[in-house]
């Protein structure tokens, strides 16, 4: 019997979830049709546990479901009022740190941040808005960067580096000064080899990396999260 075939089960909100050796809690839960809220984790990329939205309580201790390996007999709390309350606070912090104006954002209805906020019942930003000054980069002929909406998930950094082999994006600064930058001396996207066909061009979960001149092409009712909440859509994607 190889290591890969070793299996076990753990409890997720009192439901038994099977897993194979090496699977993280979020991978096993998703395969079993259970949604754990997340922003920076993507099934195609290595987890780096930065957004903390997937925080669960495993055997009484807080941990990131995207980095914590499932273990046999583990008891995991996921959708508890206490954890969802913390997740809502994390979302509120993200909303006030950037400039997220959903009413005129072309990503609305397809945005993971917006959909997760709806799913977790976030009604207000709660905290004072930062209103940061983040000019857009429209220098590229086919793509637009609207840094106002960045949540620092680094998926574009990973996609450009690991799939496209281009290293177009990086994070710069520390703490509250952390921000997404373009890897060019001019800091302009037009001065990189970025292309609209890159994996990084379609990975952004929010409305930062956008194809030009096609905004609002999808009518209301047909957008990703119009018909069902992200907790259902995310699981449906796993099973298709």
């Amino acid at each position, binding site marked *: 019997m190889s290591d890969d075939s070793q299996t076990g089960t753990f409890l997720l909100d009192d439901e038994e979830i099977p897993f194979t050796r090496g699977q993280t809690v979020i991978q096993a839960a998703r395969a079993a049709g259970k949604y754990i809220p997340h922003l920076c984790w993507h099934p195609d990329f290595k987890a780096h546990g930065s957004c903390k939205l997937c925080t669960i309580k495993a055997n009484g201790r807080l941990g990131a479901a995207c980095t914590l390996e499932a273990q046999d007999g583990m008891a995991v709390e996921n959708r508890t009022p206490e954890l969802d309350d913390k997740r809502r606070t994390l979302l509120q912090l993200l909303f006030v740190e950037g400039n997220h104006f959903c009413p005129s954002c072309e990503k609305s209805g397809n945005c993971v941040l917006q959909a997760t906020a709806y799913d977790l019942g976030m009604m207000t930003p709660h905290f004072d808005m930062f209103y940061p000054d983040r000019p857009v980069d429209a220098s590229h002929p086919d793509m637009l960067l609207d840094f106002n909406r960045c949540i620092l998930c680094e998926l574009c950094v990973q996609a450009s580096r690991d799939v496209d082999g281009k290293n177009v994006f990086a994070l710069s600064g520390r703490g509250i000064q952390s921000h997404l930058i373009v890897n060019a001396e001019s800091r302009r996207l037009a001065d990189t080899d970025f292309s609209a066909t890159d994996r990084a061009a379609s990975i952004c979960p929010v409305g930062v990396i956008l194809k030009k001149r096609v905004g609002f092409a*999808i009518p*209301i009712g047909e957008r990703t999260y119009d018909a069902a909440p992200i907790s259902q859509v995310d699981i449906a994607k796993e099973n298709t």
Partner: protein
Amino acid sequence: MTFELETAAQADKLRRVAIDPISRVEGHGKVTLLLDEDNKVHQVRLHIVEFRGFERFIQGRPYWEVPVMVQRLCGICPVSHHIAASKALDVVVGARQLTPAAEKIRRLMHYGQILQSHALHFYYLSTPDLLFGFDSEVARRNIVGIAAAYPDIARQGISLRKFGQEVIRVTAGKRIHGTSSVPGGVNKSLTRDERNFLLKDVDQMIAWSHEAVRIIKQLHQSNPALYDHFGAFRSNFMSIVAPDGAMDLYHGALRASDADGRILFDQVDYQDYEQLITEEVKPWTYMKFPFLQQLGPEHGWYKVGPLARVQNCDRIPTPLAEAERKEFVAYGQGKPLHATLAYHWARMIEMLFAAETIKELLHDDDLQGTDLMRTGERRKEGIGVIEAPRGTLFHHYRVGDNDLVTMANLIVSTTNNNQAMNTAVREVAKKYLSGHEITEGLLNHIEVAIRAFDPCLSCATHALGQMPLEVTLEDCTGQLIDKVTRDTHGICHA
């Protein structure tokens, strides 16, 4: 340029009466009156006290975002801004001629907007004055009072508005702030189910709209001394009309006529509007004063909206509304009607036109078309004009090579009517208030005059950076401590 009763001499010696806020209109505004010790009126001003900034914060945004962003100017007629911006950006993307499906879907959306907005204004905002009387019991003077006293009329109004909102929903995606109109076309067509859903009620809507015309016509005929003269004043008219001079609220060319109905200019492409219209800034309001350049600020101001449109066109292309237009014109005995309250009559004729047009469009199979988008040679600048429920609406944008907006200018319907509304309230103040003890009922006469124009005060104060501004610091007793003023040239004075 200063008009009669605009600025009083020795204002500090006069008593100030303020109507703040003006009720049953969209947005926030106030009227101030300066009276002497005999209650004689010396100054009347309609102030728009909201301060917004759309023209500025659109700058630097991608052009395709604009039709969705600018409609947030308003929750009452967002479709007008949505479509006017789209029309301006159609020009930018080289798609001035849309596909038949796209144009008809936008038309349907727009006439749904006209229907719901006119119904909202007439039934919810105006019938309390018109059916109960201007100085009737204030607690009853609202839509709840109408529902109690005239339940059938209230039900018709609510149903008409709801139907208009449903037309918007199936065409734009949502009842308020949809997203379907995009530069170059639309993002959705109508399914047969959606079309049939609307068709089942449209005949009833036409019948109720016709009934609304009858109600307002009867009010005119029952009290011509009031309806023909209340707040009446002569002015020019402006609107867009179809190439054959017919009423078309979605598209056309500019036509203006003088107070006697003589054409001042006709079939002018609105891409050239800057050669026709100039906006004047005054230090006491955030709303600008547009005027026709050829006549100057003293004589060049004009009325827009239903009263202008019904009289500026040569005909209305639907049968019931055209018959009503003819009767309206005949009432004027060869002269244009300038009665402020005639706005209501004209507005209901337009509501009937909208209901008939919606039916006509719903029977057009192009609504189910799949060819929805056009593109062409890119341009750096575009202007879109539409006849919004409240009047002619201009959107003007410049777009850089990087697709970001570099300039936006909006002249909204209520701004076009600014001088006309100020003149109306001054006429009413002179006739009804001057020399009398001021009562709530008399002050409501001022509001009745403003309401007739159906102003949208939130839409009308969209600019930022060009307006005169006064900031005052007062202590807790209201004593002035400090004051800073920015004049019309942008220069600050301490």
